[in-house]
């Protein structure tokens, strides 16, 4: 049995921290990578976050919202902490943390830590598997597509998104 209760994902992106922050928190970007869909986020402690579904997700039977959350800490462009719930599972919220550190060379390190001790089904989905075409990519794929978008300008939303 694989223990997925705490997942750590790291990636280097050739972009300033501010742009990565924008990409995580504005719909202009979130529709161009990962699973797509608008994001609504109030960037202050206690603020609400909603990641809306795409038409493709709706056609698969999902409602209007894919992810709901509460902002625990927002320190742009360095740190974003959320209580994060997947709408497709009835499980307790998990803790999602983004740490964004810009290096001297202009290369930025994004470390995402997802703690889901009480959300095993969500944990399995976000860990990702080989079935990217059917939406199984999870965080590794989502972060790879974020890097591709910011470094090449090429939108990358497949995976059951469009």
């Amino acid at each position, binding site marked *: 049995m694989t223990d997925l209760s*705490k*997942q*750590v*994902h790291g990636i*280097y992106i050739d972009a300033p921290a501010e742009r990565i922050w924008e990409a995580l928190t504005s719909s202009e970007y979130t529709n161009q990578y990962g699973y797509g869909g608008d994001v609504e986020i109030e960037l202050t402690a206690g603020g609400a976050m909603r990641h809306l579904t795409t038409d493709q997700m709706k056609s698969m039977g999902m409602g209007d919202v894919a992810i709901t959350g509460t902002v625990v800490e927002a320190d742009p462009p360095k740190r974003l902490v959320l209580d994060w719930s997947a709408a497709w599972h009835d499980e307790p919220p998990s803790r999602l943390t983004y740490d964004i550190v810009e290096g001297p060379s202009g*290369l930025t390190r994004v*470390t995402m830590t997802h703690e889901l001790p009480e959300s095993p089904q969500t944990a399995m989905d976000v860990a990702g598997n080989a079935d990217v075409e059917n939406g199984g*990519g999870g965080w590794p794929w989502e972060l790879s597509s974020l890097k591709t978008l910011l470094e090449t300008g090429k939108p990358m939303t497949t995976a059951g998104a469009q």
Partner: protein
Amino acid sequence: MVTYCRGVIDEDLIFKALADGTRRLILDALHTQSGQSLGALEEIVADRTEMSRFGVAKHLKVLEAADLVIVQRHGRQKLHYLNSVPIRAIYDRWIDKYTEPQVRALTVLKQKAETHHD
């Protein structure tokens, strides 16, 4: 030292890190249970092969330099986590692009052969 080429961890570092049985064993152990101490990993390696704590620590350094392992502190403990993002990138670069249909067919064939064998 970690070297970067245009915002990417050098692929050579990743392939070199993967080109060793002990390091693959460590990655498999972290895939089963991410967030392990050096001591716990040393025990897992000791079950398979004779190696000092220093040897295991050296292998972990190579995996860390290739960004396949991320270290986080928990109080006084240093825990090692598997970072599957570079593996995803290798997959996209080397498997997805060129050979996925073939690889998929072979994987299915292998699974079938092994199921029949059981």
